[in-house]
């Protein structure tokens, strides 16, 4: 079948190296560029994390300015330069056109442009680390007045400006990507692929893109005002004698973006998990409709919960109650999604491949992460938990799961499709187990620190009498974190080795999966489908039709085209 497509004349316009690998408009190449850049930034962010964790175990390893800077950059990098580019830019770009049977994105040039804007933003971020005056160290939430007058409070004026600039560019690039995703899925689906036949991953990417599109804009407005504060000395967010701005306004604008942002990266991760789990447990999604509706409901609700990050930050106490209610409400669609995910395992015949192991661990960790959100969403207990390590543990159980466990599950799952090669299975299993153990070793103790009232972003716990007795917990966390990063670095070596020298993957569909991307040869050629076109006949998850593992029904079939296709056409 792959040979068939390969032979059926794809129009090969000879491309220069630059055109093919650097300034390519091919969605797969762009996706890989995003993936690689994201991984590089992940190494950076992880290293920063290790450095300040060592400092927490042995205070004095860093200076306290360095410590704050590293914490700030770790947060920002992991959110904006790792999770988003890999999950939206990387997987989104590679998989969406393949899954919907398109030949490329709707706006290929815009797509390429979005990657290069992202690249520039990462470069600026790294530059901002080394500028005179030091890097920005006010926390990834960039709360003013600390950030509105950095020269005075942090001594890092230029660093802050560059940091904000990098953020703005990153948002711009992700906006372009989002416009592309939405337009592509709405207007370029293969014949017969109705919206309710889309793979859940595509649904999740679309909802995520919409959330990002509508939530990031107020923050961009806020960022402009903040830059004016820094550069022109206005006082939107600063408070001085006779100049009354409002720091809380920034917090609102930031979290109005910040909370949907969490779901912007959460949804694609959930989508990956659904694809992986259905494939390896050979079961259809327990209730496709329920998942889609729950996702949309959660997406809408996510615009109404932002102030739960500010319960004790001086907002109106009555609106705090309202936000607490919505926050608790949003746990319901997610609990439904997770229950559906759990029941998707049920009745299957589960293959514990590396991808599946990672998916299972991610699923279990999501349960912990989601549940641990309740004490924070409940306004009464948040009085105590706000800005303590409980928060840290909570969002590491969600965000680390998103950005690492689910991502790696996706990488193992689609690696043959992306590169036409295999990753060693045994290694993958060991990798999964070690990751799982070390991850819990470093994340779980955070809950106890939180219960003990350990505030976040403390350079050292030794200053406070009531925290000194928990120093050993910090040491335990640090050791696990170091081991965790080591594991991932080893994995990266294997990953890059397998890209170039892994065992060839002959079959286009090694996992016997149903969705459209597995009909294309791996790796798919430019314009994906050669002289064929996919035609969709049924829903995405037709597994276990009559209790026999081998027969699964692919979502569609390839149909020969009379007119050969050349270039992007709509």
């Amino acid at each position, binding site marked *: 079948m792959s040979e068939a497509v390969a032979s059926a004349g794809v129009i090969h316009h000879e491309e220069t190296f630059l055109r093919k690998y650097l300034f390519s408009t091919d969605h797969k190449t762009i996706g890989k560029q995003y993936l690689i850049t994201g991984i590089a930034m992940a190494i950076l962010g992880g290293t920063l994390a290790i450095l300040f964790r060592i400092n927490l175990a042995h205070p004095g390893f860093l200076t306290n300015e360095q410590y704050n800077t590293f914490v700030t950059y770790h947060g920002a990098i992991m959110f904006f330069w790792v999770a988003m580019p890999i999950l939206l830019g990387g997987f989104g770009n590679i998989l969406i056109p393949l899954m919907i049977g398109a030949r490329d994105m709707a706006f290929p040039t815009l797509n390429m442009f979005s990657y290069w804007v992202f690249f520039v933003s990462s470069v600026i971020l790294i530059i901002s680390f080394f500028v005179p005056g030091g890097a920005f160290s006010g926390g990834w939430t960039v*709360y003013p007045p600390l950030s509105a007058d950095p020269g005075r*409070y942090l001594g890092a004026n230029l660093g802050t400006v560059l940091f904000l600039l990098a953020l703005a560019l990153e948002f711009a690039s992700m906006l372009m990507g989002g416009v592309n995703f939405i337009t592509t899925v709405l207007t370029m689906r293969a014949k017969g692929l109705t919206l309710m036949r889309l793979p859940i991953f595509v649904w999740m990417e679309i909802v995520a893109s919409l959330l990002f599109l509508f939530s990031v804009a107020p923050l961009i407005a806020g960022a402009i005002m903040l830059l004016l504060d820094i550069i022109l000395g206005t006082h939107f967010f600063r408070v001085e004698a006779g100049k009354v701005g409002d720091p809380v306004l920034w917090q609102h604008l930031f979290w109005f973006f910040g909370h949907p942002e969490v779901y912007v990266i959460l949804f694609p991760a959930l989508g990956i998990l659904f694809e992986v789990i259905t494939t390896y447990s050979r*079961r259809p999604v327990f209730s496709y409709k329920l998942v889609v509706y729950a996702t949309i409901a959660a997406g809408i609700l996510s615009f109404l919960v932002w102030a739960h990050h500010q319960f004790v930050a001086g907002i109106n106490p009555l609106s705090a109650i309202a936000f607490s209610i919505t926050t608790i409400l949003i746990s319901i669609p997610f609990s439904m999604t997770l229950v559906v995910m759990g029941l998707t395992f049920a*009745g*299957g015949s589960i293959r514990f491949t590396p991808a599946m192991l990672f998916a299972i661990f991610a699923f279990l960790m999501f349960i912990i992460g989601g549940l641990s959100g309740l004490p924070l969403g*409940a306004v*009464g207990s948040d009085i105590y938990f706000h800005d303590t390590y409980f928060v840290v543990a909570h969002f590491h159980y969600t965000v680390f799961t998103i950005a690492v466990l689910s991502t790696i599950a996706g990488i193992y799952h689609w690696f043959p499709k992306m590169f036409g090669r295999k990753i060693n299975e045994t290694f993958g299993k060991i990798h999964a187990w070690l990751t799982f153990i070390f991850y819990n070793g470093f994340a779980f103790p955070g809950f106890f620190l939180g219960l*003990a009232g350990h505030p976040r972003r403390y*350079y050292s716990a030794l200053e406070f009498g009531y925290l000194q007795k928990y120093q050993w917990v910090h040491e335990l966390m640090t050791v696990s974190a170091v081991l965790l990063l080591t594991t991932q670095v080893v994995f990266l070596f294997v990953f890059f080795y397998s890209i170039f020298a892994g065992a060839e993957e002959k079959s286009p569909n090694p996992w016997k999966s149903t969705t459209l991307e597995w009909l294309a040869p791996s790796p798919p050629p430019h314009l994906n489908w050669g002289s064929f076109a996919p035609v969709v006949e049924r829903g995405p998850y037709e597994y276990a039709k009559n209790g026999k593992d081998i027969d699964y029904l692919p979502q569609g079939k390839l149909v020969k085209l009379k007119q050969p296709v050349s270039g992007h056409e709509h």
Partner: protein
Amino acid sequence: MLPQDISQHGYLVDRVIKLSIWGIVVVGIVSFFIMFYILYKFRRTKNPFPLSDVPSGLKKVIFIDYVMIIFDLILLFMSTWAWFFFFVRPVEKIKKEVQEKGEKFVEVRVIGRQFFWTVEYPGRDGVFGTQDDFKLGNLLVVPEGYNVFVKLTSGDVLHSFFIPNARIKYDVIPGRETHLWFKPAKVGKYEIACAELCGAMHYRMKGYLVVLKEQDYKMWLDSAPFSEISFDYLDDDKIKFVKGGEVR
């Protein structure tokens, strides 16, 4: 795990914390066991072919959603109660109630600056703006069993005034005045932390809450200028005072 609760109303918060923690532990463990059961029962080696339908017993797992919803409602109710008690009622209202009940209260002002707390006391007469007002650095001395009303303001950036032992925390915001109210019920010396990143020395922005017996508090007020203070029930021997609040 939780530090000792020294305030009269801390139990409200503790109740929510305990409820939520135990609730999520139970729900978590149950769902983990269900998952392990599923993963074990339907593993490839034992179950080579997928079933074409989910066993109806497992379909009941959806009841976890109802458990979640009920749990959510209880949690909401109690947490909102606690929140209402501490922060929703305007501080003047609380003050009036306190006076009607004939309880005693003290007022203090706390100003957060990088990186120390300045505590302003109204002095013996209990009113601000008279010349017996005085300031202390990083030290909040209050009498046991009194209602303590704290006015919070910031001199520069955001801080967060956090007394773990009293289960209260509120942000200190420049340009705004925020309020705290608590009722210390146990003498001793406790720590005040800053829970909002405020700069390089954030982790050192530490104050002390000293709860004295009523008569000791009066004696202490009279004994100005304060050089030092020591009572047998304060865990460490002496507490030095610095006037003007410019301590680091």
